[in-house]
């Protein structure tokens, strides 16, 4: 199979995947740092490279609103956004999931205002973690490309029918040029196949009502359906991941264990920082330290079983969060900690919040956090900060 290796940005990787997926409808609004995705895609449309109809909406709120209409109509529909744009969509983000519309949305993670900041953190996507969307996180541009393509299949699977956010770190991934292996168009096209619409609005022979008033007698039942659909994601993800491996040689899972076999001190993180952690793990391994990394690819649904399987019996676990939860434990830490409640042999746990508003996290900071773990200085209910002046 002919593979193309190109130096492109994460934004280009997302736009290129969208080009190959060739959705029926894209509705999008520019926002830093997502803007290049919509720009690249608009160019594909303008040049006639894709048959997609693009709706140049007047806001992200209308982007998601229009996609709800388009997806309900029976179209494969995509958008992309960041930060305040995602926050503006929020109400409709929930509705899209509740109406069980398989929309795929690259999210270029950026700090939520205020104060306004255009750089990376995960506060935008974390504000949507209970919205009913599947949330995937990418370490680099390659993963952006791969997971965006896989997301279409996951979202549209008959046992799922849920929207998916494919998260990439703002600027760090979206604007950084890296080598990405691209699959041929026809391979992607045959992998994603055609959407099989469920209850399409445009089927006037079988008129359906979307979005009724759903009161106390049925709302709960419909929420249970969403809960169950999320549980189904695990099985479907594995199956689609296996299929994707066959066409790409790249294998995805809910989590990626890195040098975990005999690791006693483990770090858990989301997004691009995982790459930096791998570098530090390599360094510390050279020094004879038994460290490892558990990278989270899938944050929603949260892979609790894998967390338990990989972290049980380790000496210490450090969880890095690129967002804070004011008045509570940071989101990833909270999820990891709660997953470990039931395990027999609990590791020492520590929480580090880092990188808010694009604050750089370098190998020295990662090493510092590992050293805290190695010297058993972690306190489970004490939140610490990496790279903050105190």
């Amino acid at each position, binding site marked *: 199979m002919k593979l193309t290796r190109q130096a492109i940005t994460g934004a280009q990787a997302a736009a290129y995947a969208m080009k190959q997926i060739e959705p029926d409808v894209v509705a999008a609004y520019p926002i830093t740092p997502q803007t290049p995705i919509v720009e690249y895609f608009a160019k594909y449309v303008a040049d006639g490279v894709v048959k997609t*109809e693009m709706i140049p909406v007047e806001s992200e709120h209308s982007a998601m609103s229009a996609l709800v209409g388009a*997806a309900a109509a*029976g*179209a494969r529909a995509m958008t992309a956004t960041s930060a305040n744009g995602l926050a503006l969509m929020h109400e*409709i983000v929930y509705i899209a999931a509740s109406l069980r519309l398989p929309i795929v949305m690259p999210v270029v993670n950026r700090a939520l205002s205020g104060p306004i900041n255009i750089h990376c953190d995960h506060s935008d996507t974390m504000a949507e973690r209970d919205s009913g969307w599947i949330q995937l996180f990418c370490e680099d541009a390659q993963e952006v490309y791969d997971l965006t393509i896989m997301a279409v299949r996951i979202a549209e699977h008959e046992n799922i029918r849920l929207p998916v956010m494919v998260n990439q770190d703002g600027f760090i991934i979206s604007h950084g040029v890296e080598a990405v292996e691209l699959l041929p168009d026809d391979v992607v096209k045959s992998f994603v196949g055609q959407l099989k619409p469920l209850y399409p609005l*445009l089927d006037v022979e079988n008129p359906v*009502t*979307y*979005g*009724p008033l759903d009161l106390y007698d049925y709302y709960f039942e419909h929420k249970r359906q969403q809960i169950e659909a999320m549980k189904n994601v695990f099985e479907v993800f594995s199956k689609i991941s296996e299929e994707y491996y066959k066409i790409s040689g790249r294998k995805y899972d809910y989590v990626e264990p890195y040098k975990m076999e005999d690791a006693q001190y483990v770090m858990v993180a989301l997004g691009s920082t995982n790459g930096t952690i791998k570098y530090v793990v390599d360094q510390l391994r050279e020094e004879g330290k038994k460290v490892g990394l558990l990278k989270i690819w899938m944050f929603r649904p949260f892979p609790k079983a894998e967390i338990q399987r990989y972290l049980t019996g380790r000496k210490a676990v450090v969880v890095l969060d690129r967002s804070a939860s004011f008045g509570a434990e940071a989101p990833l830490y909270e999820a990891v900690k709660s997953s470990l409640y039931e395990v027999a042999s609990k590791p020492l746990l520590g929480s580090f919040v880092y990188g808010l508003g694009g604050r750089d996290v370098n190998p020295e900071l990662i090493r510092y956090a590992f050293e805290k773990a190695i010297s058993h200085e972690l306190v489970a209910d004490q939140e610490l900060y990496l790279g903050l002046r105190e």
Partner: protein
Amino acid sequence: MPLTMKKLAEIFTDKDPGLTQGHRMCPGCGAPITVKIALMTAKALGYEPVIGFATGCMEVSSTIYPYTSWTVPYIHNAFENVAATISGVETAYRSLKKSGKIPSDRKYAFFAFGGDGGTYDIGLQSLSGAIERGHKFIYILYDNEGYMNTGNQRSGSTPPGADTTTAPVGKKIPGKLQLKKNIVEIVAGHEYVYAATATAGEPMDFISKIEKALTFEGPSFLAVLSPCVRYWRVPENRTIDITKLAVQTKYWPLYEVDRGVYKVTRKPSSFKPVSEFVKVQDRFRPLLQKPDAEEIIDELQQYVDKRWERLLALEEATKDKPVR
């Protein structure tokens, strides 16, 4: 030949207009009448309506799960985004038709329905965006001049002096002070659009405007005065004649703006004073009990007179001068 009531009745002997019985709107509500007339006209002319609804009375009362009063494809998304939602449906239609994924022999009519809250206020941006982008859809505003779904709060459409719960007539402030937004001119300002007023009390005018909207190659917008008998505080059986009165008193002038060209579509030979429209509605009663009530009504009279003259002048000035 324009559709008549008799003709419509024949056509709908063995089919429904898209809206069925069993909806739970108040007795005498104007909204279902507005919606029914719009859908009947579209269906009678061979269109397949696909409709979006903004959150509001009609949305809530027509789709209480697992009941639906719709036999046409229907989507409700949220309060403020019906125009964006239907623009997505319409775009999906064009895309799927282009790629051969759906048959192309059907004549769809994409309708968005919203009350004045979802149109004048919270949904204005979404409406403006969808019109500016030029989607082919018909937006029908059922204007009952307040947030009636939540119990009679002030909207950008509430007339001055009307008693609402968020702009009540008080000891110091005589209810809402501001005039209604001129929603038709706001919409007409988008240049490539057909915008008009209508009301059920003038059915032939209403039907012919729906017909025009259906064939217009672009977005169209109908502001339809649709009384809320409960909060206008009028008898349930007066829904229709009060809208006639609104036209006869210049309160609700019937006109259209087709790509910038104004046309007044009903010019009564004689007018009634606006006080007749005001006095039949008890929503104005607290105002009328104030000592300066006459003065306020005079002001309203002057306003509707001036607006009428202005409309006639616009009709004259824009004659044969479409912006596109």
